[in-house]
């Protein structure tokens, strides 16, 4: 019976005014309560809205880049200088141009020929060379080879060119559109999965540019980062958590690690530039140096996560091991560390995900190289996925804008995968003591 029951004895005469005033005040207070609650919800929903806007912008731009329009080009591989041996170095330009013109037999003037060439990618000879080098038995025959159209023609075919605009304001002329339409009518254009995007390195031509080089660069860089920061971070965490005496030096190391975690990433780039490149004279633009810089950057994350995981192992485990005669090092390496491993791995993966998305420090050590060849070793010049995104975002062509978005989608997929693994590890192996 704790409900404050209204006492009828008090409610007489003048008190009614007071009650009315009180109820308006209460109403106001409740309105303020509702408003406040609404502001909170609005803040959360605004944040969600930003996320949705961000992702939809990226994905909307990326979707067109995953497919590409290829034209079926009938190529006469009958040049007598072309042999199976030199197919990989042969200059296919003349052959390809002849094949392109053969699609439009009624065009013979110079301007018309240039127009015809313009609707195909300027990388067509390279594509044809790759195909022929892979199938040398084609030599001497006539083959239909799918080749990419030019990026402007591709955008037009995807309906991304506003044909109502006056001709001077778009990149594809009416005459080119007519040629492309002719190919479409003859059924020679086919929209396929964009393999070039996933297999090529960098290029100045949007249709020939791919993310393979950047992916390999990211893989090499991240391997170096993992090889350095995981063992060093875990061992440092073990020392600080299990062995370090509580004194000024270890306090200093602790403060140091916490502050290092908050240093802007670009400062690590400056460190890499001054120490690794200028002082130690490591090669510029190399995944080796990039990996080292990122390792220093992720080290605090790994150490902090590993320490938390080690701390979560209950002292009874250590006491039991020590009690049956294990040394302290045996206790840690045989009993505590295996139990802390899931937490350590989760922290390491999250640190690696951060390193995978990092751009600024890599700009400092010259990983903005324009690398056409795929890197093969950690000392080769290379670039990484986020830097590739940064470079492509600077190119004015719409084709590159879509490539940028597509590369972002790939990067986000990798990050989501890494985080999903981390979450899975945590839920699968986490133990409550």
């Amino acid at each position: 019976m704790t409900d404050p029951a209204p006492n009828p004895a008090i409610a007489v005469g003048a008190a009614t005014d007071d009650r009315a005033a009180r109820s308006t005040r209460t109403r106001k207070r409740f309105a303020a309560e509702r408003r406040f609650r609404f502001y909170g919800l609005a803040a959360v929903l605004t944040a969600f809205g930003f996320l949705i806007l961000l992702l939809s912008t990226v994905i909307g731009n990326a979707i067109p880049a995953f497919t590409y329009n290829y034209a079926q080009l009938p190529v006469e591989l009958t040049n007598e200088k072309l042999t199976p041996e030199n197919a990989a170095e042969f200059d296919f330009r003349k052959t390809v141009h002849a094949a392109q013109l053969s699609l439009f037999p009624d065009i013979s003037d110079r301007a018309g020929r240039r127009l015809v060439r313009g609707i195909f990618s300027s990388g067509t000879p390279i594509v044809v060379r790759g195909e022929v080098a892979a199938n040398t038995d084609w030599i001497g025959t006539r083959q239909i080879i799918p080749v990419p159209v030019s990026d402007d023609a591709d955008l037009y075919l995807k309906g991304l060119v506003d044909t109502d605009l006056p001709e001077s304001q778009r990149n594809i002329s009416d005459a080119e559109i007519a040629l492309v339409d002719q190919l479409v009518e003859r059924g020679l254009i086919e929209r396929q999965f964009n393999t070039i995007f996933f297999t090529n390195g960098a290029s100045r031509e949007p249709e020939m540019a791919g993310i393979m080089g950047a992916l390999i660069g990211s893989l090499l860089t991240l391997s170096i980062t993992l090889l350095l920061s995981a063992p060093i971070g875990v061992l440092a965490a073990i020392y600080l958590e299990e062995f370090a005496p509580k004194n000024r030096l270890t306090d200093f190391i602790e403060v140091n690690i916490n502050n290092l975690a908050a240093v802007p990433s670009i400062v690590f780039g400056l460190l890499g530039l001054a120490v690794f490149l200028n002082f130690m004279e490591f090669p510029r633009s190399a995944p080796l140096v990039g990996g080292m810089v990122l390792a220093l950057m992720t080290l605090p994350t790994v150490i902090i996560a590993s320490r938390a995981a080690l701390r979560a192992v209950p002292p009874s485990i250590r006491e039991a091991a020590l009690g049956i005669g294990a040394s302290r090092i045996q206790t840690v390496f045989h009993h505590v560390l295996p139990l802390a491993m899931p937490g350590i791995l989760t922290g390491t993966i999250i640190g690696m995900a951060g390193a995978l998305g990092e751009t600024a420090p890599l700009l400092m050590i010259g990983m903005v190289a324009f690398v056409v060849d795929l890197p093969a070793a950690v000392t080769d010049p290379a670039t990484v996925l986020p830097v590739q995104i940064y470079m492509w975002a600077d190119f004015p062509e719409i084709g590159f804008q879509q490539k940028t978005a597509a590369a972002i989608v790939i990067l986000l997929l990798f990050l989501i995968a890494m985080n999903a693994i981390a979450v899975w590890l945590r839920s699968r192996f986490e133990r409550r003591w």
Partner: protein
Amino acid sequence: MMVALALIALATIAYFTARSRSVALAGGDASTLHSRPVYHGFYAFFWVLLPALAIWLVASRIADWYISSSLSERFSAVIESLSGPQAGAFINDAMTLASGGRIGFPDDDKIAAGEFVAGLQSAAFWLVAALVIGVALAGFFYAYSRIEPRKRTRQAVERVVRYALIACSVVAVLTTIGIVFSLIFESVRFFGRVSVFDFLFGYHWSPQSAFEGAGASTADDNSRVFGAIPLFAGTLLITFIAMCVAAPIGLMAAIYLSDYASAGFRKIAKPVLEILAGVPTVVYGFFAALTVAPAIRGWGEVIGLTVSSESALAAGLVMGIMIIPFVSSLSDDVINAVPQSLRDGSAGLGATKSETIRKVVLPAALPGIVSALLLAVSRAIGETMIVVMAAGLAANLTINPLEAVTTVTVQIVTLLVGDQEFDSAKTLAAFALGLVLFIITLALNVVALRVVQKYKEQYD
């Protein structure tokens, strides 16, 4: 590389032989050994690896030094005939030729020098390799002869492991020292050319017009083009805009999630906010440059304002979005740390939930929230990619958010990217800016962490 592989192979062999040797000495019964056989194995392993590695490091240093000194001795006539930078280039080219690379302008002298170096290098390689392998073998025989059942190899091995642990935890300290020294070293060189006062308080920033070379006017000219005030102002403007977005949204989101939201909603909302924090900054930069900046420009045109296509507003807005989860998760921690008894007390006096939050919880959490905001500011000041992609390069001194401004981080990137010359005042200026950035963010962090710690103790 070959030497490293040989060393690892030798050490592995040593591990297995020593392990089985210890068992054999114990007459097949490992329990009579003082240390388990594994430790005897590792004992030999370390004796092979560690001295050999140390010798390798020292010997290869000495070999490099010997090669370069005998190169400049042998070709002293050639080198003296060349001017300073050319002599350096000559030595570099000789080294490149020796390692099989190609150089720009080969001549007879360089080729001869290259062959000379190559000859020395291969001799040095074999010498060092023989020395290293020799030391490794000596280590192996020493360890092997020392193995006996009562030998306390576990203690020896554990001592090595413990030193390795200490070495690893010192890496973090070395990193800080490396940062501080490299920034200070390069900055001091910069301040030798441009005075500290001109740099910190100058109003004009246009490093591309910096005059390089000798002459009495160099210092005068340079002190006029390296005034960093416009950069600091631009950084502050963008940070201010970002905080105007992130502080209210982040704080209100934290309040809603901690005090109003149902458990189910919180379970979904928190990871979604974390996604916002996990998106790489280069993606935000793309978003800012591609979507937000043109949109703001378009709206500006509709209401008749001229908006720069690289406006501070666009960069600041997107940076604010990036910082929202940072603010919300930090304030969430702080708000949750306020004891429930304070809330219950307030509710018992008849306050509504919002009154409790505004009049009791927030004042109690205020120091923590302030330090969360300080950490967010430090994050915003150090953020690079968004501003590189969406803010401008021109150093305008303005507080109009619709104009283009530049920031400290943008200038560091533009001064250093694509520039291979590390001795110009331009590149050194980047390090001076980096030093300023480092000091400011460090100060913000130290203050913020102090406040949080003090505040935590209050309620523990």
